[in-house]
């Protein structure tokens, strides 16, 4: 599979030194990679919007005004400059809600990708390092996880624990650790068979020491690449959950939830569905381009795929 391919080359790339120092190569590649620049630019821009949301938003995203509900955007008849993108079903300013939505998406993306990282990398390294029955057990867990419909799991968990931003982070994280596992397991198996690990083992280093000092540092660039991809995947997962009503709860502005709310009047007010979707698209494509870029930059031959 593609994931395994890029990781292995990413790891090999780590030791590669030409005439330039690794840092120089990295910088050179980074600024020569259009996709990476676009992706990183988008992410940076959206992150800035999230940070400066209170300054940028023209209105309080929670302030309702029932008498001015469902106003159209300014370019459609009936729209006003006061609400540039119109208002939602409770008369809240749509632009302000979209702006504050960045905070929800980014928080959940980062949080869930981190939760997945902790689970996936831990299991992957353990499975890859110890092998045998532990490896079989973890592989079984992986297959079971992949076969379990995530939607059901999410619905049940949201109910039991009660919905909040932290619960959604936890749930999305728990559903998205398999990539980390697959990649780190294969990579760990590979590294473990290399000479320097055998040497460390021979000199009396404990498994713990070997994992922390020999294996994990070598996995770092691969993990960063997956993390960037998982960021996008987690954001999409949150939006799907919220769209189905089992994710972020109203009145918190979540793009997925806004699409669900706008769906009912989709034929008459399509912008309610289109606008939050575009925001989601830009954020996720940013993360993916950045991930692609990072993978290319950290691999030995540049764009390797």
């Amino acid at each position, binding site marked *: 599979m593609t994931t395994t391919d890029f990781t292995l080359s990413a790891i090999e790339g780590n030791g590669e030194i030409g005439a330039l120092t690794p840092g120089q190569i990295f910088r050179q590649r980074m600024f020569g990679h259009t996709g990476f620049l676009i992706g990183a630019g988008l992410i940076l821009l959206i992150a800035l919007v999230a940070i400066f949301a209170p300054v940028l938003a023209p209105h309080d995203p929670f302030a309702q005004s029932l008498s001015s509900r469902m106003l159209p955007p300014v370019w459609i008849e009936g729209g006003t400059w006061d609400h540039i993108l119109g208002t939602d079903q409770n008369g809240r300013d749509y632009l302000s809600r979209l702006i504050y939505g960045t905070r929800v998406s980014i928080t959940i993306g980062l949080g869930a990708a981190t939760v997945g990282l902790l689970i996936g990398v831990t299991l992957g390294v353990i499975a890859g390092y110890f092998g045998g029955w532990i490896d079989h057990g973890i592989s079984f867990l992986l297959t079971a996880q992949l076969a379990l419909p995530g939607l059901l799991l999410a619905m049940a968990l949201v109910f039991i624990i009660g919905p909040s931003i932290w619960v959604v982070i936890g749930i999305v994280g728990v559903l998205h650790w398999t990539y980390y596992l697959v990649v780190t397991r294969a990579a760990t198996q590979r590294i473990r068979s290399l000479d320097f690990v055998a040497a460390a083992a021979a000199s009396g280093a404990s498994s713990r020491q070997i994992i922390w000092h020999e294996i994990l540092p070598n996995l770092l660039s691969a993990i960063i690449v997956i993390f960037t991809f998982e960021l996008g995947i987690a954001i999409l997962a949150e939006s799907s959950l919220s769209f189905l009503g089992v994710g972020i709860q109203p009145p918190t502005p979540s793009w997925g939830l806004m699409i669900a709310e706008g769906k009912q009047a*989709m034929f008459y007010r399509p912008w309610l569905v289109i606008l939050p979707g575009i925001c989601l698209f830009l954020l996720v494509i940013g993360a993916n381009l950045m991930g692609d870029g990072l993978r290319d930059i950290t691999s030995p031959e540049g764009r390797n795929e």
Partner: protein
Amino acid sequence: MQMIRWRTFCAAGAVALASVTGSAAAGPDDDTLRIAMAEEILNLDYNYTTKREYIILAQLTDATLFDLDPETQEFNPSIATGYEWVDDMTLDITLRDDVAFHDGSPLTAEDVAYSYNWINNPDSESNASGVVERWLDNAEVTSPTSVRFHLKSVYPLVLRDMANRIMIRKDGTYGEGADIDRDAMASDLIATGPYKVVSFEPGTELVLERFDEFFGEAPAIQKIVVRNIPDVGTQQAELMSGGIDWMFKVPLDLAESLGATPMAEHLSGPDLRVGFLVLDAGGYTDPEGPLTNVLVRRAINHALNTKEMAEYLIGGSAEAIHTACHPAQFGCDQSVVEYPYDPEKAKELLAEAGYPEGFPLELWAYRDKAASEAIASDLTAIGIEVDLRYVKLESLNQARAAREIPAYFGTWGSGGTADTAAIARIHFDEESDRNMSGDTALADLVLSAEQTADQEKRKEIYSEAIGKIAEDAYWAPLFSYSANYLVSPQLDFPLDPDGLPRLQNSSWK
């Protein structure tokens, strides 16, 4: 692009798509009324169902002993020709002799007695059992056209239950002993109503045809087809293309948008459903909680702009209410204390109660998301930190049964009964987990209203009860609902004041 142009555009699109799907010709041509329901229809036997869709269908397929006149709220004879109270606990009912079942066999007094005794039998596990067990001891055949009902206790609402809840089946329908079959009538229904079942594909389609031997007034339309279309958007597209003639429970925005086109007519009728906040005055979730303080509960009442919610979010004939019952219900005294919308006053009350900075509140809701958010927003405006839990109904019911809910946005349709009894008992009975007031005196009061047959006395009791609920602000009443329908311009569909759609009364223009 202009709004109007866009709409026509969409409408044209939907028409075109319908011609692609090749939907059948519309109504009057083949005298067939096609209706859509979002909820799956799975069981045609109303003795074993509860939801509103099934009440609508039971109106078509079943006849009961009495008929409720939605205008006067009186009970007219139907299968019964009349009744007589022998004493407080004994009721004699005489029957028509010309009632036929859908299979052609005549209805007998044995069938009537069987139907009641079956539902009263714990083995039946009927959804109507709970209602009937309250009052029925047994039903006894006294002559070929009369049945005597022996009651367990004085119960003034016998006729109501007879009209609404007990469908008449043939003697022995459900079997006995090891052969009990509670699904006997679930799909091949044999009843006595104006329409009979021609074919039924659960969850997909139900076809009904006028029953020519029906004893009452024959309905105008020959055939009714009920299609299950879960998505409102799809229903809308079908309506615009003539694939269906009638849809209900239409969201206001959609009803108004589509009703403005020549392709459909938007009808908005009254509905007995009311919305309200139930507050944990009894301290079940927290004995010392802020909601146990009457000032806090009054503050909440003052904080809600129910008028705007009714006008903009529910629409149609919806209105703000200030009573724990629908204004159209018998005994729903409108002179009780009112808490007009006044956020400043609400803040003062909160401060007086010792919560000048507000407090955190978990508010549960299960329908009308926009209204739920509006309520949360109004409460936030007076300083209460609302954590809105918008969940499925089942989840809410379960959490409420476990006494984990401090406040919820509930609604109640009273089963279409314009009597305060239909809302008071279920919400203020001591046994009910919906009752979070912790007021046992009130529970006794509400119960006492059901133990007298004297209408004046009942009215008095309900006035007192409703007054007490308002005075102590156990609830924050919100608004009444309106029923929004979209119908084909060719269909004449009369609306009744109790909000129950009676399709048997519709006709072609």
